[in-house]
């Protein structure tokens, strides 16, 4: 848990505060994204938690791993920082040290022994889906995305209960950013850290945050709420503007494919004969059907006209399906994928490639209408 109480920061030589009377609480195990226009004091807020910047006024508490709520202003800043994970946009890996030494920075400061550091580093690389050989490489031998993963691994090295992330994916290209975000969300399911996540990108804030704190200029908190609440019920005009005119569409970010898909889809088995398949298609009044094998793995689809007057197994007439959607995908990404491949219905698969359902643009539209209805109520 991170708790801010009436925190104010006025930089010396200025009169207007950079952060003004900020109070909010991040519950344990949740990600709180801080978002706002540039100069709104979001980074200042974050840096006050590990006292890289000293607050002018107010109190900040952090729940330590012994379950005690500690006032950070009463702690030794050096020890405090060793117990808070810290990730910055430019990563800041030490170029003269190997990946192992980089990941081992905080454990070394905490005087762990070398074998312990090594096994922890290996464990972290496993979490990040990176091979152990990386441990003996140097940062310049890694790609940008890999370095960012190491940056996150380094912050988690000593298993701190609290992490601060300052635009951690900001310097990564959009494709890799999306990948890293998804990976990190998956990781967070396991590690359940309390995270303060600074970003300037409202989409990222919605995607990553369990809670979002939106700041306006001079560090005033405009709204602190869950993403769904912020999208459906913006507190004021500033939030409305900041979230953007497409906030309805953005709600799609919050709904997963799993929640709206047709869970009992109509499927053809590859072991069926053409006659049989044709009969089933007629029953459902369809022009085509998806075909799966005995493990429910997607094989492709068949068209009615390809089967007409044919005999034998249907797998001879299967056309490979161009794409399928992972079950954890959000509706916004799913919709854009569907528009791209121009399919009206698409298969949803789990992480072992088994078909779990199908989804159509009509279902997405229905889901959106429903969430809008909820908003009106």
């Amino acid at each position, binding site marked *: 848990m991170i708790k801010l109480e009436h925190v104010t920061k006025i930089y010396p030589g200025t009169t207007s505060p950079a952060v003004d009377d900020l109070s909010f609480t991040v519950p344990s195990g949740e990600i709180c994204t801080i978002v706002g226009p540039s100069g709104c004091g979001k980074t200042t807020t974050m840096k006050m938690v*590990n006292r*890289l910047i000293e607050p002018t006024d107010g109190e900040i508490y952090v729940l330590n791993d012994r379950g005690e709520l500690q006032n950070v202003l009463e702690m030794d800043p*050096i*020890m*405090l*920082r*060793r*117990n808070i994970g*810290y990730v*910055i*946009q*430019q*990563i*800041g*890996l*030490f*170029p*003269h*040290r*190997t990946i192992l030494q980089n990941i081992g*920075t*905080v454990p070394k*400061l905490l005087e762990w022994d070398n074998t312990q550091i090594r096994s922890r580093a290996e464990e972290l690389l496993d979490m990040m889906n990176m091979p152990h050989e990386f441990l003996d490489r*140097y*940062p*310049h031998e890694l790609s940008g995305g890999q370095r960012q993963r190491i940056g996150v691994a*380094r*912050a988690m090295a000593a298993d701190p209960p609290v992490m*601060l992330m300052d635009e951690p994916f900001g310097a990564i290209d959009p494709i890799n950013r999306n990948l890293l975000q998804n990976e990190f969300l998956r990781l967070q399911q396991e590690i359940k850290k309390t995270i303060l996540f600074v970003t300037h990108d409202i989409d990222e804030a919605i995607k990553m945050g369990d809670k979002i704190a939106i700041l306006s200029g001079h560090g005033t908190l405009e709204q602190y709420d869950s993403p769904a609440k912020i999208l459906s019920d913006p507190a004021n005009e500033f939030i409305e503007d900041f979230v953007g005119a497409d906030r309805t569409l953005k709600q799609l970010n919050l709904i997963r494919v799993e929640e709206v898909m047709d869970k009992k889809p109509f499927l053809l088995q590859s072991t069926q004969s053409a006659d049989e398949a044709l009969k089933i298609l007629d029953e459902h009044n369809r022009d085509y059907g998806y075909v799966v094998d005995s493990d429910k793995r997607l094989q492709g689809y068949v068209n009615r006209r390809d089967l007409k007057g044919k005999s034998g197994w249907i797998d001879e007439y299967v056309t490979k399906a161009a794409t399928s959607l992972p079950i954890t995908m959000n509706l916004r990404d799913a919709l854009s994928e569907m528009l791209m491949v121009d399919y009206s219905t698409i298969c949803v698969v789990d992480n072992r490639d088994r078909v779990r359902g199908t989804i159509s643009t009509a279902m997405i539209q229905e889901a959106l209408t429903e969430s809008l209805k909820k908003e009106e109520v």
Partner: protein
Amino acid sequence: MPTETQEKTTFVGFWQELLDDWMSTLTSPDLETYVRLKEKATSLKTVINIGLLGLVIGFFVLTVQPPSFVQTESLFLDLGRLIFYTEADFFILSLILFVVATLLGGTGGFIEHSYLLSLVTAPLGLVIVAFLFLTHKLGLTLAAILNPLGSIGITTIFIVLFVLYGFLLLLFAIEAAHEMESHQVIYTIGAVLGSWGLLRVFAMFAAGEDNIITQESAFLAEEWARGTLQQALLGHLWMVAFSVLIAVVIGVVIGVLITMPPKRPQVSHLFFLIPLGVFFLMWAAPKGWLGMGIADPIMEVSNTLKIILTRSAKGVFGPLLSLLSAIVRKPAAVGMIGVILTVIIYALLIAGESASELTLYIAGIILTIPSIALFGVFIGPFSIGAFNAVVALTLYAQLPILRNTYTGIKEVEPEIVEAGRGMGMTEFQLLRDVKIPIATPVIMAGVRVSVVMLVGIAAIASYIGNDTLGDYIFHGIQRVQPLRYYAGAITVAVFALLMDYLLGLLQNRLTPEGLKGRR
């Protein structure tokens, strides 16, 4: 139609093409031209190119110096003989260059290689022959032409430019013929010229020639045999090494201090009173300011140490021990310097970064003081001798180190420092584990500059009575013995180059593995 073109290339076309090739090498002497001409290379054209040169050389030598070149009754036979010699010389040289180039990774064939070389050699050779012919006809000697102070000495400049032009053409020709990198071409030509030089020097000694090179090496050998050269070398080496070692400590400390944020004085800073007190005692007591009671024991310790050090000052470490003895016998001077340094370091600790500009400015100014003047200034407080020299050399040496330490640390990317600080490193850990290791290559570059500079300045320290290689230079000038001052100059230069090379290796060793091959 096809037969006509065929005929044209075999007869008129051949000469026209040859002329074209000549014109393009002379009018657009660049790599592309040679690469293009490489396609048109044939052995016949090469032979004709060099044959033309041989013909002109033949006419020239037969006209200018008939007695030594006319050997038969027939002019044609003599001409033919000279043409043959020219061809033979060219192909032998070309072959040597070809072999070396191939060994160094050249890929061209010998025909292309020779043809491109002939396109450099023949036109330039013709110009040279024409030039020599003209001077001969005008009755000028080579000495008169080359004397840069003479009335026609301006030609020297043209000749130098011409030689450089020829060298450039040669580079292009080899680069084009073998598709090499420029540095490989330089190595090729360097290897050939270098081995020629070595052979020439070897021949000099084998034949017992009496010239400046053999005389100088005889002089050096004699000095070595008497042991005086080694002594001067060791004196020089220790003088430089000792001063640089002190300078590294002072330079790095000051360089680091002026990158730190300013500090408020704290109670713990009272620690500085300890060195300050000790140094002040060393300074004041021998002067008798505190009464003879304290002065005597200090001087006694100083004397005993001095005697021990002087007695054991033999062998390889001899000059170092003499330096140390020169230092221990001046406790007051050491104390004074100690007091000044302690005050400066404390002041910089408090001022931190705000003093960086001033510090670097002062450091820059000190560097502009001529070394001989600085030695002179220090005669006042420290009189002459090793102590004076060490102080002056240390002062010079720490400037590049200080500057490079400052820039090296300032250049560490701020996000690296922020990451370190954010993970809970103390300022000292940040400095020791992050900033200094990353700045090491830059700091070492400063040390390298310092050492090379000191090797030169230490020679001048001989002026205030110190045994270094400078002795050869000063004594040589006083006694008008060129061999002696050449010896000084050569050894100092070689010493400086050697130190630079060795420190380059050290720099590479000290550079953290992860910083090599970055970017």
